[in-house]
């Protein structure tokens, strides 16, 4: 089986992993994995990590601060393998603007890059780590279920329903704390157990085990107050762009709340059967039941595909990939004006 990764969008620092650094407005094949499925594509500001299910990680893009886990001599890089530590498989990771975090199969956490607001999570006042460094955190036997980062903060969900975070904690996006920066992983003080997390630029979104969604942090677009109109039992999934929240309902509708400066809140016609959806920094991607990938929102760098109108705002659903008989779409991911699609061969 061959798994193929296609990408388009902003590519100034080679974050798409192509042979040059030109932006692309059509999906281009950038990586092939012959044996292992692709677990995740983790997009930072101008860098990208590709995580395979066999525990290998590849990185590409801006490495000025070591955020690609490559030699600090390399300012930017094409796709290169990231070493495993002590032979341990990587199982998950996240990336913010100029930093990256990887977790191995023993739930050891490693980070690298630049983090003036505690993004590295390594130590007090430690803002730079050009090489991979270990984050000192005792899991106390608990498993890490998910980890998400946006610009300058990281949140981590454990199997006991607790959430830890580090980075910029101004305005409450890492919970109630007087500290403006949390330099090391710190437990968020929450009244209920959490089952799903999302990180956005100014806020964090938590879904509790009773399905209720809560936004913590700066809520400039009054998103929380509009959530009351959504039945909690109707929430299937949710994703955040940098300034909006998008909720997929059990009836396959997307309810969008927040900044609509570039058609980020486009109403998705109810006739579209949504199988999967993803949020980039300010654009959205969805996979239909028929296997077509559609995009909307801010697409100035080609991340929404080729323009049909003379505007960078895609106020319509644009076809980014049309179903073929040869490949199935397995995964979609959105980054900072980048779009990613993983396919597998049809048997």
């Amino acid at each position, binding site marked *: 089986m061959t798994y193929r990764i296609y990408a388009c969008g902003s590519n100034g620092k080679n974050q798409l992993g192509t042979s040059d650094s030109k932006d692309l407005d059509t999906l281009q094949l950038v990586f092939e994995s012959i044996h292992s499925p692709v677990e995740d594509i983790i997009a930072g*500001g101008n860098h990208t990590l590709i995580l395979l299910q066999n525990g290998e990680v590849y990185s590409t893009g801006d490495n000025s601060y070591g955020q690609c886990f490559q030699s600090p001599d390399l300012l930017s890089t094409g796709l290169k393998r990231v070493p495993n530590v002590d032979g341990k498989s990587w199982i998950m990771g996240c990336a913010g603007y100029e930093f990256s975090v990887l977790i191995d199969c023993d739930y050891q956490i490693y980070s690298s890059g630049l983090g003036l607001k505690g993004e590295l999570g390594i130590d007090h006042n430690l803002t730079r780590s050009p090489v991979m460094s270990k984050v000192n955190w005792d899991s106390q036997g608990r498993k890490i279920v998910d980890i998400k980062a946006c610009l300058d903060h990281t949140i981590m969900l454990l199997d006991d329903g607790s959430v830890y975070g580090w980075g910029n904690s*101004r305005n409450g996006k890492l919970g109630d704390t007087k500290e403006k920066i949390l330099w090391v992983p710190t437990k968020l003080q929450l009244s209920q157990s959490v089952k799903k997390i999302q990180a956005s630029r100014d806020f964090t979104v938590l879904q509790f085990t009773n399905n209720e969604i809560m936004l913590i942090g700066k809520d400039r677009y009054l998103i929380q107050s509009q959530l009351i109109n959504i039945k909690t039992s109707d929430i299937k999934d949710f994703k955040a762009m940098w300034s909006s929240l998008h909720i997929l309902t059990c009836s396959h509708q997307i309810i969008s709340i927040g900044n609509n400066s570039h058609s980020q809140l486009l109403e998705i016609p109810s006739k579209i059967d949504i199988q999967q959806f993803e949020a980039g920094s300010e654009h959205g991607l969805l996979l239909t039941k028929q296997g077509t990938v559609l995009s909307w929102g801010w697409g100035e760098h080609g991340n929404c595909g080729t323009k049909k109108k003379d505007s960078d705002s895609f106020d319509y659903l644009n076809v980014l990939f049309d179903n073929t008989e040869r490949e199935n779409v397995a995964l979609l991911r959105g980054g*900072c004006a980048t779009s990613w699609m993983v396919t597998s061969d049809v048997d």
Partner: protein
Amino acid sequence: MSNYYDQIEIEDMTYDPVTQLFTYPCPCGDKFQVFIDDLKDGEDVAVCPSCSLMIQVIFDEEDLDEYYEK
């Protein structure tokens, strides 16, 4: 409707006393930027060198004093 992508408070921006620039991450991966002197002169827009997006900087003129002292 305004032409701004977003409005950002000056406390959320990063100030570099060497370049005299306030910066803030742009969703394209680059950074919005504006000189402190331009803000002093009444400008309130920060632009991104890599794309067409603009933000409006929310500040009072007296907010700038503490940054000039840096």
